[in-house]
């Protein structure tokens, strides 16, 4: 069991002694049952920290934001940032370290175990409660979650509420940590890894395209998936050409010859280029936190594209994302026995 009081007192201690300049964690949200991410800078605020199955966000995203702010600051604070990290968050930090986005001493990881389960899918929860408002969701061991709604508490089996990525998760406790709260749980057996991607590739070619065409057609290009992804940290994205600004002096020839990888219009072909670009740019980097899929306003199963590539990386190249930040990354390394038979 993760003792939240211990987590709070350690957070307060770290802030009091000035070992971290701020700490990123979760606190009780104001809209509904879900916890919300927060940054605390004063030891007194440590009391607000929580850890429960509604802590959905990947906090590595805020480390990226923090690093961007520090890079722009006139007098950067050299002290590390503390971060509360579950299994997937710690993998994300590991990938960011692998890419030298920041250094190991710039981050202090307070690892929290997912208690052998994981976080909930809010949609599954509201379907289960049939319209009643949940007030609290708590861990209840490996059996499930204790859901409070309308004054009564029920024990719901974990399998029914867990987010899809948590069902397929292979490492539900943070491997990379400075302090670990809770037990290390690796064997869980909810679902086999990559099940959804395996199922999706079983369909025929035409059926696969029909499905994805429908998904790409629905995409409104709000770029929420990009905004929420801790790995999409490029200051300028390749799919929007913001450095090419049209001015009155821009000639027609300049406009015609500039490289535009994909148009901004939200139609099938352009959305396909966008999503495939994002998937391939996340190959060997996606840690399957499922945030892109969660924030998608039109419910595109974006996780499938990423997990498909992670599955190939795992099966063909024996590469596990976020396992060891000292290893070279997937696309910057190779082996002689890499698949070659597809090449003529």
């Amino acid at each position, binding site marked *: 069991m993760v003792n939240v009081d211990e987590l709070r007192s350690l957070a307060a201690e770290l802030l009091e002694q000035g070992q971290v300049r701020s700490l990123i964690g979760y606190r009780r949200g104001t809209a509904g049952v879900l916890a919300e991410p927060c940054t605390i800078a004063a030891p007194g605020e440590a009391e607000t920290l929580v850890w429960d199955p509604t802590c959905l966000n990947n906090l590595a995203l805020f480390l990226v934001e923090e690093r961007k702010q520090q890079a722009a600051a006139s007098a950067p604070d050299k002290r590390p940032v503390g971060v509360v990290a579950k299994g997937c968050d710690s993998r994300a930090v590991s990938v960011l370290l692998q890419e030298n986005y920041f250094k190991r001493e710039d981050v202090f990881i307070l690892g929290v175990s997912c208690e052998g389960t994981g976080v909930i899918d809010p949609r599954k929860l509201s379907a289960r409660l049939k319209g009643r408002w949940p007030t609290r969701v708590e861990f209840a061991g490996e059996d499930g979650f204790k859901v409070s709604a309308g004054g009564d508490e029920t024990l719901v089996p974990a399998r029914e509420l867990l987010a899809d990525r948590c069902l397929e998760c292979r490492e539900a406790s943070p491997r990379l940590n400075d302090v670990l709260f809770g037990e290390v749980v690796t064997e869980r057996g909810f679902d086999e890894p990559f099940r959804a991607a395996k199922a999706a590739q079983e369909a025929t*070619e035409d059926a696969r395209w029909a499905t994805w065409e429908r998904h790409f057609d629905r995409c409104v290009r709000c770029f929420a998936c990009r905004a929420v992804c801790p790995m999409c940290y490029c200051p300028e994205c390749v799919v929007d050409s913001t450095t090419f600004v049209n001015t009155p002096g821009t000639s027609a020839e300049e406009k015609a010859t500039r490289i535009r990888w994909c148009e901004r219009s939200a139609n099938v*072909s352009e959305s396909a280029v966008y999503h*495939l670009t994002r998937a391939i740019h996340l190959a060997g980097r996606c840690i399957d936190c499922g945030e892109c899929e969660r924030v998608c306003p039109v419910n595109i199963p974006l996780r499938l594209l990423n997990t498909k*590539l992670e599955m*190939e990386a795992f099966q063909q190249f024996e590469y596990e994302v976020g396992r060891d930040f000292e290893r070279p990354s*997937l696309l*910057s390394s*190779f082996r002689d026995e890499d698949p070659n038979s597809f090449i003529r």
Partner: protein
Amino acid sequence: MPNPLHSNASEAQEHEPRVVAFLCKWCSSAGSDLAGVSRIQYSANATPITIPCTGSVSPMYILAAFNKGADGVLVSGCHPGDCHYMEGNYLARRKLYLVQQLLRFIGLEADRFRMSWVSAAEGAKFAEIVDEFVGDLRALGPQNRLKARH
């Protein structure tokens, strides 16, 4: 009695496939040159684009080619071990394997993307690969899945 399969095939015959071929300047590009100077007859459907190394092929090139209306994309480079930059083709192999898997996953026809190793001495092999590719693409017909429709 007219054979429906046959009439489909003849319709597809009318379409001339367009292939974008990314050729490594150290080998496949010279290989295509050799095919030319050896006067080998092969399909003229491939538009060659010389690149410094297959390792420099960004997946964006391939997606953009399909987006701009290519029926097939060929990436051709040096045999493993022969890369001018020591390891470019090994890195390309890994990267383009993933691109191929991804394109298949979303349901683009598997035959539309192809990769080959062609050295500067293999003019005949280059001609053969292009012929075979164009033949396969003819059977598939025009590529409409990723092509821009605006």
